[in-house]
């Protein structure tokens, strides 16, 4: 299983902030993704209306999820495929291992799949003498490094080129040790050549799915490299691992969502390869897998239906929320401590592993709202983080000091006259005390702030006093 370090988020974050190579690598997130998405969205006048449609399609699919899943499963079987239902990660691992054993599989190639990360498939297969080979370039790099993805669409975004070079020299010992690996193209070429052999050797190819189409019993993968296609078309068996909320009704519905997926993710109008797979190869087909299996994973998702977290099941894993998140930019993906980082991870992780384990994540947000503003599926991420904070509070999971502090604040907040009187005095006193320097270097109860920066001394009255004054001055004023 993927080790959960979410409870240590604060320590993880501190470590990440002090990690110079990581900070260098994170610069690529800030500089690249945001501008590319903006250009792509700008170039399509219908983009925002397509986001509305994408949201509505998923809402409809979720409201009828049981029925669409049944329709989907019937279609897969009609096309000669097999559907396996897995309630838990453990069930899914067991089903996949059973398929491997029934085929005497020793090597499986893998397309990029967050769901197989979620179920900790690689480690499990290795324990049972099946060798998983990641074929997406980023996934391959982190598999060599013994790491997990730090981003859902750019798994090796935390790794710098010189680190990739060192890993390739360490692992590809059959190649000339004096070869030149200065250029990224050379690194790519080397990975391409090494993985080529694996595609042809593998007994089974495992992919995830971006969508499952109920109309036709089709699984869809979206990639740029073509590794997923080589993974699923060369071995004799293709296994798809997908969670239940990937269902969309029709090919038209997929087409709507595809128009916002790549634009939100990488700023491409369309990813290079969007591949629709339905059942095994047909009788006259000269290639393609002879066996096609779909493992449908619940793993806690059905419990999100009908709750305030249902909207999270609309997520299409584009990564836009983390690409635009100032917290993700600062600490990267690993600090979040489990499979899904960034804002979507801060909402989804507590649903899947429990808020007791991951209560820090919904707190690791400035509520700036950028995630929601770029989410192609219009998922209200900040609102849902707030729901988690409420649940955390109601279950007494946050530290005593925070609870007492909040309780104290609530006492005064519920008594506006007292609150205003006290804040007026406090602001006045602080203003006087800080008049000389204009700021404080230290402040009781505010050490977390003043350890890293000065606290500005208040100038003028409280916010409410200023508001009242401005409002009084111009009744029709500027709000």
């Amino acid at each position, binding site marked *: 299983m993927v080790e959960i370090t979410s409870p240590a988020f604060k320590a993880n974050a501190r470590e990440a902030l002090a990690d110079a190579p990581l900070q260098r690598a994170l610069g690529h997130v800030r500089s690249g993704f945001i501008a590319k998405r903006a250009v792509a969205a700008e170039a399509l006048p219908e983009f925002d209306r397509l986001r509305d449609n994408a949201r509505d399609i998923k809402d409809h699919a979720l409201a009828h999820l049981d029925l669409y899943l049944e329709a989907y499963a019937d279609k897969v079987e009609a096309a000669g495929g097999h559907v396996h239902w897995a309630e838990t990660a453990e069930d899914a691992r067991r089903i996949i291992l059973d398929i491997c054993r029934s085929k005497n599989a020793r090597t499986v190639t893998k397309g990029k799949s967050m769901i197989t990360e979620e179920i900790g498939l690689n480690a499990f297969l290795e324990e049972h003498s099946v060798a998983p080979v990641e074929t*997406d370039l980023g996934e391959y790099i982190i598999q060599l490094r013994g790491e997990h993805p730090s981003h859902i669409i750019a798994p090796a975004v935390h790794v710098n*080129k010189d680190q990739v070079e060192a890993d390739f020299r360490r692992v590809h010992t059959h190649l000339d040790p004096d070869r030149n690996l200065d250029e990224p193209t050379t690194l790519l070429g080397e990975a391409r050549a090494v993985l080529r052999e694996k595609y042809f050797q593998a007994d089974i190819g495992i992919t995830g799915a971006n969508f499952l189409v109920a109309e036709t019993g089709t699984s869809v993968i979206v990639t740029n490299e073509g590794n997923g296609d080589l993974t699923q078309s060369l071995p004799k068996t293709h296994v798809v691992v997908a969670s239940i909320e990937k269902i969309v009704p029709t090919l038209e519905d997929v087409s709507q969502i595809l128009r916002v997926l790549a634009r939100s993710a990488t700023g491409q109008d369309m990813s290079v390869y969007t591949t*629709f797979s339905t059942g095994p190869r047909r009788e006259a087909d000269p290639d393609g897998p002879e066996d096609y299996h779909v493992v449908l994973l619940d793993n806690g998702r059905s419990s999100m239906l009908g709750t305030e977290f249902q909207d999270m099941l609309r997520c299409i894993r584009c990564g836009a929320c983390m690409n635009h998140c100032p917290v993700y930019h600062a600490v990267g993906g690993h600090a979040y401590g489990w499979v899904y980082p960034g804002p979507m991870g801060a909402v989804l992780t507590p649903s899947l592993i429990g808020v007791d384990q991951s209560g820090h994540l919904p707190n690791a947000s400035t509520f700036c709202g950028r995630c929601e503003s770029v989410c192609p599926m219009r998922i209200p991420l900040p609102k849902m983080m707030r729901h988690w904070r409420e649940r955390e509070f109601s279950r007494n999971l946050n530290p005593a000091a925070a609870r007492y502090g909040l309780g104290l604040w609530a006492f005064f907040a519920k008594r506006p006259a007292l609150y205003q009187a006290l804040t007026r005095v406090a602001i006045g006193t602080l203003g006087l005390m800080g008049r000389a320097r204009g700021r404080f270097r230290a402040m009781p109860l505010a050490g977390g702030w003043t350890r890293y920066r000065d606290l500005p001394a208040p100038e003028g009255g409280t916010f409410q006093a200023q508001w009242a004054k401005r409002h009084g001055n111009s009744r029709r004023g500027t709000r």
Partner: protein
Amino acid sequence: MSDARAAILAKMRAAMGRGRDDDARRAAVTDRLQRSPRGLIPARGQLDPAGRIDLFCEMAEKVQASIARLPSSADVPAAVSDYLKSKNLPARVRTGADTRLAGLPWQGQAHLEVAHGPAQADDMASVSHALGGVAETGTLMLTSGPDNPTTLNFVPEHHIVVLRAADIAGDYETLWDRVREIHGKGVMPRTVNLVTGPSRSADIEQTLLLGAHGPRALHILVVGE
């Protein structure tokens, strides 16, 4: 694992709450699956045929595909030879059994060897026939079968695709209707590939590089007016 199926579906139905109208839900699902209503189609691709062809070529070139416009399908073999020469590739391609390709004057290219069947590891170039193109994004649609084996789209370093200009649609939805005409409503070939440019990766420091695992180059022969 039919127990698991029943358990998951029961959990969902419980979560969705009581009092829901199952007959109405079932009717809504059946209706949507049968009608497969179109959503919003961007205006960008909704052009006359000549405009669609131009937009397709423009969008495909924007994503690093190369394009050659040919007056007639009889020009395809010579265009394939020319492409191989221009890339210093051996005069050898692999194709499927597509009759639209098989009927072409390959014998006019004396040195060009044409192999058939699924891709082999050492194939350098392949020729496929697309079902259609999508002007909106410069996307090709290819479908699997003996005529155009899927591995030809991914294994060789150079993928040459023949696309009839008349098969270029404005949007994906038009091509889905074409797939349904051929295979029937609700039925798909084993694989449908939407291909937009050659293979690429930005996994090393977010620098875009072509030719990750699939073809390094995608060359599209647009045939006819």
